[in-house]
């Protein structure tokens, strides 16, 4: 095989990385290089340096170290049984690309994952070495996200955590059965124990020691995971249940949902219909409701009989439509938790309502100014100068919001 140039490798190994949804670079500790001897900074909020025509933010150099892989996960373009062209970066090449891209202000940092070569430990050791050279030899203070291989030795995962801003371990699929079926070499129990281990390390790093000094940093931007939606037949109820367990048990910062995307040279086991992107979007909205609005997974997915989120209206509106007995809500009296459940009221709107209410009555126009989406909220609230009358219970309320039915796309 002819030697590939760095440009050819970059093409192959960014192609291979694009199915990972996460590109976040926010929420880490603050650092800078004003001392003149180092490079890079993180200031809390990550920056999107470009947007691809798929609408996704490009904030990190997101690449695979190699797309050679000894595993055979059917949904993955890199599985051993695929005929995709293979490439492998050297450790030095990745370090060089990261630093040079960073210096030109293309990126916030590096998001590195890899196919598994030789053994999980060998692969993980190389990943860690890249992060170590960046930090120690180049004084690199930009953002580093390392995708961790769950079967790798705990010492390696620990070192990864000390060097990186974020650690992620993908759970890949919503249920253990699906993992067994579609990612036969992966072991859900190992994945969970690795996540538990990372959680312990993160928590230990936050505890103050006796001398009141912070312990050594460990993944200050936390731990995340990704799962693929639509490659198996799990319904949204199962997915959200799984996420709520992940948030609860492993204190994950984020769960990413990636709509199964048709891949070149795909396996015949996979569904032929491309799941609508809107399903992924609804899952993110539902996820948001669980994290910031006090909804439980069963409440959200219990709205429908088949455990699937409504694709036509957002999950909060769907919940309100199914729970009309709880509405309309008195905006000037209702508690915070109740207000948060009103469609069209975001956390910020609710905060503003509570603030204003302390010294005067809230009227309809105030809500407009506070940024509420009144098209959605109107049927579910009353204020002194607005009452929905029988709108709340009207038969055709749903029709006001649902756009004309949309057909699934055939792949």
């Amino acid at each position, binding site marked *: 095989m002819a030697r590939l140039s760095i440009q050819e490798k970059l093409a192959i190994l960014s192609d291979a990385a694009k199915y990972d949804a996460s590109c976040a670079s926010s929420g880490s500790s603050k650092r800078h290089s004003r001392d003149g001897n180092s490079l890079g*900074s993180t200031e809390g909020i990550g920056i999107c340096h470009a947007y691809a*025509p798929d*609408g996704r933010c490009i904030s990190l150099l997101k690449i695979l170290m190699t797309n050679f892989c*000894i595993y055979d996960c059917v949904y993955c373009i890199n599985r051993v049984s695929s005929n995709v062209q293979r490439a492998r970066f050297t450790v030095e090449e990745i370090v*060089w690309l990261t630093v040079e891209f960073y210096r030109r202000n293309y990126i916030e940092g590096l998001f590195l994952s890899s196919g598994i070569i030789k053994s999980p430990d060998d692969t993980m050791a190389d990943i860690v070495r890249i992060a170590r050279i960046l930090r120690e030899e180049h004084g690199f203070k930009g953002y580093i996200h390392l995708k961790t291989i769950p079967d790798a030795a705990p010492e390696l995962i620990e070192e990864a955590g000390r060097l990186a801003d974020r650690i992620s371990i993908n759970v890949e699929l919503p249920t253990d059965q699906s993992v067994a079926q579609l990612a036969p070499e992966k072991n859900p129990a190992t994945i969970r124990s690795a996540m538990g281990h990372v959680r312990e390390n993160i928590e230990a790093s936050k505890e103050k020691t006796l001398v009141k000094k912070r312990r050594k940093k460990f993944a200050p931007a936390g731990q995340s995971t990704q799962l693929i939606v639509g490659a198996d037949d799990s319904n949204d109820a199962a997915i959200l249940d799984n996420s709520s367990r992940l948030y609860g048990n492993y204190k994950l910062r984020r769960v990413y949902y990636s709509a199964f995307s*048709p891949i070149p*040279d795909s396996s015949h086991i996979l569904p032929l219909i491309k799941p609508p992107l809107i399903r992924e979007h609804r899952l993110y909205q539902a996820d948001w409701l669980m994290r910031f609005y006090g909804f439980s997974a069963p409440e959200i997915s219990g709205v429908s009989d088949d455990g699937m989120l409504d694709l036509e209206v957002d999950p909060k509106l769907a919940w309100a439509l199914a729970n009309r007995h709880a509405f309309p809500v008195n905006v000037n009296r209702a508690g915070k938790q109740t207000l948060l459940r009103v469609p069209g009221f975001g956390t910020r709107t609710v905060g503003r309502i509570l603030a204003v209410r302390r010294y005067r009555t809230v009227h309809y126009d105030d809500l407009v100014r506070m940024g509420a989406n009144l098209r959605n909220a109107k049927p579910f609230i009353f204020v002194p100068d607005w009452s929905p009358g029988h709108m709340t219970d009207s038969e055709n309320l749903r029709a006001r919001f649902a756009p004309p039915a949309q057909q699934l796309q055939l792949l």
Partner: protein
Amino acid sequence: MIYLVQIEQPGLFGKWRDNARSLLGADVHPDNIIWKGTSSTGELFDSVTAPPPKMPDAELRVPKAFLSLANSVICHNDPQRFGMLYALLWKIRSAPAKLGDVSDPLVSQLRVMEKTVRRDCHKMKAFVRFREIDPLPPCDGTEHNQTRRRFGAWFEPDHYIAERTAPFFARRFGDMDWIIATPQQIVHFEGGKLRHEPGGERPDFGTDATDDLWRTYFTHIFNPARLKVKAMQSEMPKKYWKNLPEAALIPGMIAGAEERLRKMRAAEPTVAPARAAKVKAINRQRADKA
């Protein structure tokens, strides 16, 4: 008496603040001041005006929120901004609560200007692209650390924000020397020191071979199965495209997306490479042992 105040770059905020302090100290009503920025023209009033009073010791306390508002608004390209900020200062002197009253037309106008400037700054931090000036010989795997490497960028923001964003770039690119040139202002960072001068024509920073690698990355990280052109354009408005090395590729990427998908669908399933069976057998053995 009409006072004429000229605010020159760099250091717009400091110069405006010093003048505003003196004028307020001398109780000069906003209507009696003509504020002029570098870009304003017309010498119409010069014959009837006087230079602003000097009151170096004047002390002035303002709410913190005013400072952050003024620091942003001063970067706006509206020539009226100096006078508007002074008018607000005049108002809040007797009624500090005015600052939070968005139903006041002046306050709400200034808030909008503040937002605009903030967004412009944010986009500048995102879309400045450095090119290396006189690069050292290309990659042999090690970085050349002997001297500070030099980079230059040309960026066209809507407002006077190069000075305001400079500390961000200094914190981020601490070990390099760089220039960021904009039509309004130019920032130099040399040996760890920031220096500002008024803007000008686009300097020639040459080309940078790494831009090709970045373009390669940009095209390949894009997933043609998820075209969302509107989402992209609202975040990366076309006005920035001309200085982004990757942007020229976008139309072609959009046009080619359908075709790439069609090919992917049409492709016959392939037979797994011979290696696959062997590797999988080894994996199974390992799993059984474990």
